[in-house]
């Protein structure tokens, strides 16, 4: 069953990382040889504000067990205010998803700078464990009817 | 009874790029199951639905002629989801095909008549089928003089260049190629298709005009043909509408009370005038 943790199941996590900070942070994690679980698939985007709620929901629909959106810290946005706009958007989305009963811990938001390689590795480790604890995604997964 | 929604499996034997913008390719398809080939009987003007599974289905006029068995050819202009998917395929790919669908050019009416074939841009596909069919040695004598007027915006966008070269060399066919804008090597005519028709001024006597092209070309071609004396009953058009089922059920390709997929795609202008409807 989907609800049970299947033997050998590994969570799949989609991470949308902004090109200027978080992606560089991920890069630095690699260069610095900070270990983190391999469950995350990274999609590089120009800015965290590029991420539409649709991309997050679509990820959950098509088999992601967790989603992370990460951008520059406030004040650091390459486009000056992209992350501030994103912050408002995600505040509403985050509340809405929780309100509808989508488990907390499926969708994550973070600020990771280009200098935070270690933090990136830690963040991914934490998120992976949180999603692992939740088990495979349930609510929005598309099942053929 | 056969399920009309199930496509047959075809193999893309050859895919060639037709135009210099690489947006138009011609696909030569062969039947994976040879038994299906023998029951696939078509005539010029008919179309099929081609499928790329997972991407969908779209209608394409058959560009080859039934006089050359073995392959079916389709010329595909990259515009939407399905045509893009087709363009991304490589030779050897398996493509779904349903058909043949729709009616064909009124070949019986054409018998013994002169035929003026007018095409523009990418819309020469079923006209090519018609030309090849007429030129086939067993068929040629059944038709009178054949005139082909075909134009594109510029030389690089003309389809079937090698074939046109052969056709131009034939004595039993008059070919006029034209472009809106010539380049250095261009030897043909310069000007839009309606103007070239005026210039060539084919006689309407005992003749049918067959027109296929972009809406703007059709719009300006029809008055010219009328002026030359071609009555609506002897002006033949091939129509294009968005289609899904291809078998007169899904409800979207109608012009008035006729479904283009079943009653068409070939109509005479007289028929179209009678059908009030959007197209």
């Amino acid at each position, binding site marked *: 069953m989907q609800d049970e943790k299947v033997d050998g199941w590994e969570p799949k996590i989609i991470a949308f990382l902004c090109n200027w900070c978080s992606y560089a942070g991920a890069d630095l994690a690699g260069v610095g040889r900070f270990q983190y679980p391999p469950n995350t698939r990274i999609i590089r985007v120009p800015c965290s504000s590029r991420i539409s709620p649709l991309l997050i929901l679509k990820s959950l629909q098509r088999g992601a067990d967790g989603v992370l959106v990460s951008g520059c810290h406030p004040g650091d946005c390459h486009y000056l205010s992209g992350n501030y706009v994103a912050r408002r958007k995600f505040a509403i989305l985050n509340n809405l998803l929780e309100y509808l009963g989508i488990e907390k811990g499926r969708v994550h938001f973070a600020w990771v700078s280009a200098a935070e390689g270690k933090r990136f590795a830690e963040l991914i480790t934490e998120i992976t464990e949180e999603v692992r604890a939740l088990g495979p995604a349930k609510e929005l997964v598309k099942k*053929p*009817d | *009874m056969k*399920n*009309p*929604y*199930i*496509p047959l*499996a075809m193999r893309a034997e050859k895919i060639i790029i037709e135009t210099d913008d690489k947006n138009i390719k011609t696909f030569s398809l062969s039947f*994976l*199951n040879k038994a299906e080939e023998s029951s696939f009987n078509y005539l010029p003007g008919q179309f099929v639905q081609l*499928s790329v*599974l*997972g*991407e*969908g*289905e*779209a209608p394409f006029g058959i560009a080859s002629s039934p006089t050359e068995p073995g392959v079916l050819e389709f010329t595909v202009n990259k*515009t*939407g*989801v*399905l*045509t893009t998917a087709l363009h991304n395929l490589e030779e050897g790919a*398996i493509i*779904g095909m349903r058909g043949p669908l729709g009616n064909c050019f009124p070949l019986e009416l054409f018998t013994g008549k002169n035929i003026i074939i007018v095409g523009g841009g990418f819309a020469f596909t079923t006209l090519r089928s018609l030309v090849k069919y007429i030129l086939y040695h067993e068929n040629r004598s059944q038709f009178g003089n054949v005139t082909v007027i075909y134009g594109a915006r510029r030389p690089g966008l003309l389809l079937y260049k090698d074939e046109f070269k052969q056709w131009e060399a034939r004595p039993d066919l008059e070919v006029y190629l034209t472009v809106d804008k010539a380049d250095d090597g261009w030897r043909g005519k310069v000007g839009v298709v309606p103007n070239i028709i005026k210039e060539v001024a084919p006689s309407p006597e005992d003749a049918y005009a067959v027109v296929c092209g972009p*809406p703007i070309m059709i719009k300006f071609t029809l008055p010219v043909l009328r002026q030359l004396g071609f009555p609506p009953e002897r002006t033949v058009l091939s129509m*294009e*509408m*968005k289609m*899904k*089922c291809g*078998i*007169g*059920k*899904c*409800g*979207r390709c*109608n012009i*008035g*009370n006729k479904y283009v997929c*079943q009653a068409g795609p070939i109509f005479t202008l007289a028929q179209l005038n009678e059908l*009030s*409807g*959007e*197209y």
Partner: protein
Amino acid sequence: MKEMKIVKSELASFLDSLTSEYKVFAPVKRDGFVAFQEIHSGGEALLDYVNSKKPPKEIFLPQSEVLFTYRLGGEGLGIEEPTFEDKPMVIFGIRPCDARSLVILDNIFNSQEYKDVYYTNKREKTSVIAIGCNQPSSTCFCTSLGGGPFSPEGSDLLLIDIDQEYVVQAVTDRGEKLVKKHSQFRQVKPRGLSLMQKVTQKAEALIKSKVETGKVKTKLDGMFEDPFWDWLHEKCLGCAVCTYLCPTCHCFDIADEATDRGGRRLRIWDTCAFPLFTLEASGVNPRPTNKERMRQRVMHKFKYFVDNHNVAACVGCGRCIKECPVNLDMRAVLNSILIR
């Protein structure tokens, strides 16, 4: 046509006996409205209702239906056609207007040239048991379209409620066989027949909405370019309420849904009200505004369909009238066509 009767208290046992042999669909109350659903015991069927929210066409033409599935990687296309269930079906409790709609849909899906196996497979194995309408709604205008509250067309059996029992008309051989096979059907007494007369006359008189649809067709023949269409659509929202809830609207889309290594091709309800319906990949749309789309809906139902099949694609069930969010009433549309 021979009349029989069934006592109301025995109806559930009749349906019970059907459920063993047939897949039985009947009206049930769900989410606050009436819907046709498979029942497993006779008691589940709802008997006193005006009509279902969604028309029973969805039993034969579901909102989405798998045309085939495919798996990539093998020889050829890897297509697998769906298998059809052998079990025969019964629709019980359908209204005469909806039963007629099936006959109208047959024109499309069971045509000479191309038989739609998905539809016909279900249609051919289904017995239709209709219940006449003693209490037609004020939005019913079936009598204007060649039907009526007790029209037998499309039904195998027609039940007419005469209080404690139903008079049963076997409309077809298939209906006759059902009657013969089940002990719950008995001889009807003359009193029952005269009651039936009264009931049907009373109900027919209740249908006050009348539209001369025959004349509508003649008018529409010359109305394609009429300025009428310029304002008719003005309040229309361009949603699919009227067409999706229409028992005769049948237009559909075909779309693929891909998964990792395979997928399926689906047939999905579609509607002339949506711009996407006719939008070509090139960006050209022959019906670019609400005007053309509204004209198409009216023309398709009351002219084109009549031209091609000699019957209007409307049974006067009134669903579009009841449910339109802006009260764009088809009866009013038809009447304003008549005075053009």
